[in-house]
């Protein structure tokens, strides 16, 4: 029995590696995707356009404007005469935000009174606007502090000191690129298993499997091996790109992370085989994979935090293997996550793998009979 299993595993690996399209999918595409999405997918805010409407002729508005213009989150600075002109520009999306200094701004600053600046932000770009606003707040606070240090009549309130652990410079790529390693590994494993059975059915070789002495479990196991191989290779490749090309620090344990990758790919493969056993053509299975992939990625916390979702959706999200593995990958890269915390994310993966595998085996068995 073991010999038979080994033989069919060998066949699957050969089929898998012989296809040039598969080889391209394995090595070319993921590297390209990491490079494009790693650079593009950022929630940081840089080079956004700022408009200035200055009704104040004094020194302090000029000081504030020159500090804002020099900040790295600001790109082009447009000086406008009045708010009507500004609102037209904002409506046409030509600027993200505008600063409006009232006429008595500098006088208020000089007298030690609170001086107000209106910051008008395009709500269509709510996230970038909020981030830009928080940067602007830091600039205003910095100017306020310096005023207090320079001139004794000013009083400055006590401050809150902020420390960002694990990623002190808030580099968004340190978050996104490790996430891509997990996600791309899942995409590959799903695509390989998703088309494995439907492909045989379309080519007519599935009938040959039917008359072979292999049991459904053996078929399932041998069809999982290429996915483990492919998903594993892509995962390792992208982790390498993250560390060497994007300089993401890795503080945790490689051994723990790659050990956790095994149940992760296993649970994904079970889902892929299930889709494949239900589909009659490759096109159907590709669409099925696509139908599963998008929601799984969206509810996993890949781009936006899991905790922001409503509670009922968080319960559903527990069924997404990516959700658990993302925590392991993020933890291993930046937080040097201890084994106990890794384990608390591994056992859900084991449960998902057990469920998806049992279901897939049952379905293949039904298809065989």
């Amino acid at each position, binding site marked *: 029995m073991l010999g038979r299993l080994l033989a069919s595993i060998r066949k699957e690996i050969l089929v898998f590696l012989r296809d040039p399209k598969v080889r391209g999918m394995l090595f070319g595409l993921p590297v390209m995707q990491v490079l494009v999405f790693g650079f*593009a997918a950022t*929630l*940081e*805010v*840089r080079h956004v356009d700022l408009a200035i409407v200055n009704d104040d002729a004094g020194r302090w508005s000029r000081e504030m404007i020159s500090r804002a213009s020099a900040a790295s989150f600001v790109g082009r600075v447009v000086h406008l005469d009045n708010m009507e002109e500004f609102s037209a520009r904002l409506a046409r*999306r030509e600027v993200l935000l505008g600063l409006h200094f009232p006429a008595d701004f500098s006088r208020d*600053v000089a007298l030690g009174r*609170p*001086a*107000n*600046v*209106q910051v*008008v932000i*395009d*709500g*269509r*770009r*709510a*996230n970038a606007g909020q981030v830009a*606003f928080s940067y602007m707040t830091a600039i*205003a*606070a910095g100017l*306020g502090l310096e*005023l*207090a*240090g320079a001139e004794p*009549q000013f*009083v400055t*309130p*006590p*401050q*809150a*000191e*902020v*420390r*960002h*652990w*694990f*990623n002190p410079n*808030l580099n968004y790529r*340190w978050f996104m690129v490790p996430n891509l390693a997990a996600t791309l590994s899942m995409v590959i494993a799903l695509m390989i298993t998703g088309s494995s059975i439907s492909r045989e059915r379309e080519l007519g070789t599935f009938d040959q499997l039917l008359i072979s002495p292999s049991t459904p479990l053996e078929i399932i196991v041998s069809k999982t091996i290429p996915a483990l191989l492919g998903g594993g290779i892509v995962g390792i490749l992208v982790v390498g790109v993250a560390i060497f090309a994007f300089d993401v620090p890795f503080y945790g344990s490689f051994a723990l992370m790659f050990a956790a990758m095994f149940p992760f790919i296993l649970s994904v493969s079970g889902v892929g085989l299930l889709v494949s056993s239900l589909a009659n053509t*490759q*096109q*159907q299975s*590709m*669409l099925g994979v*696509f*139908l599963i992939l998008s*929601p799984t990625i*969206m509810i996993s916390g890949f*781009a*936006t935090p899991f*905790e*922001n*979702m*409503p509670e009922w959706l968080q319960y559903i999200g527990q069924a997404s293997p990516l959700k658990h593995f993302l925590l392991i990958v*993020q*933890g291993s890269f930046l937080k040097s*996550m201890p084994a106990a*915390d890794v384990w608390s994310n591994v056992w859900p993966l084991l449960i998902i793998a057990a469920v998806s595998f049992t279901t897939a085996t049952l379905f293949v068995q039904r298809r065989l009979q």
Partner: protein
Amino acid sequence: MRRLWALIKKESYQILRDPAAMLITFVLPPILLFLFAFAVSLDVKNVRVGVVLEGDGPAAQDLAAAFEATPYLRVTPARHREQVESKLVSGELKAFAVIPADFEARLLEGQGRAAIQIVTDASNPNTSTFTAAYMQGVFSGWLQSREGAGPEAAAIRLEPRFWFNPELQSRRTLVPGAIAVVMTMIGTMLTALVVSREWERGTMEAMLATPATMGELILSKLLPYFVLGGVASAGCAFLAVQVLGVPMVGSFGALMLISAVFLVPALGQGLMISTLSKNQLVAMQLAVMSGYLPSFLLSGFVFEIQSMPAFIQKITYIIPARYYVSSLQTVFLAGDVWPLFLRDMASMLAVGALFFGITRLKSKKGLD
């Protein structure tokens, strides 16, 4: 004309019978819209944070109570830093504030000295920025509300005004973006899949042998999808406004016009992909890579285009969804801003002309 009509009828029947087309047009769009409305949220709320109260002074306790009373934070109280530090590693907490034992003394001293410390889990930098800003807001709000807090501080106060989306619901900006993703699926992915299947099965060649001209054939293939796309955009707009609570400040006519113009480059891209690949699996992958993924990663509704590196910003110029998202967000949230619409529509038509031009060049070669 009658020949064209007959061809269109034939293609329409074919679409209605195709389960893949029905799946992409009627099942996926509502799923995607709901996911973008509920799952993909950038609104930070109910953040789990720790508050470490190291001393027992009345001011310290009052501040801790202020943190707990904040509706957007879910506070885990602690007495020592060690109790919360490991929870930051495991991800149970997203941030914690430390109110030190000598908090009262630091408060009196004033002059910009750090009175409390806020530590965030920056493994997700975006959440970390918002959480820190929020906790700082709680602290400064508490300072201002204290009785006898002394003279008002000299400070530059920023008054934020978020136009078009005053409540800052990320859903209002994401759902219009999701409509662009849905329309890209129908316009590009579906067309690419179906037309490449015709090439693969050889039915395209069979059609070319009929008296119908190439122009008629292509028109008859694309028109049904054009109608399907129009129906889908109206359906999506209905869902967005009636179910998902997105306002509709602009006019419905403008929305339909923009969507119709968007379908030109979207269909052109689908046709181009199928002509270049003539193979279903390759077409599917190309459509996902060049249509579906860019429509939400590079179109600017989740990730800000101006923040991307210059070479990726250049790529976004040939992504039709980029212009569509800009106009969609405007028509839903800001109103009919015609200068913006005209600019976006001109860009979409230009990209569409490029795609159709490439298709024409390539399909001529294929026939020789």
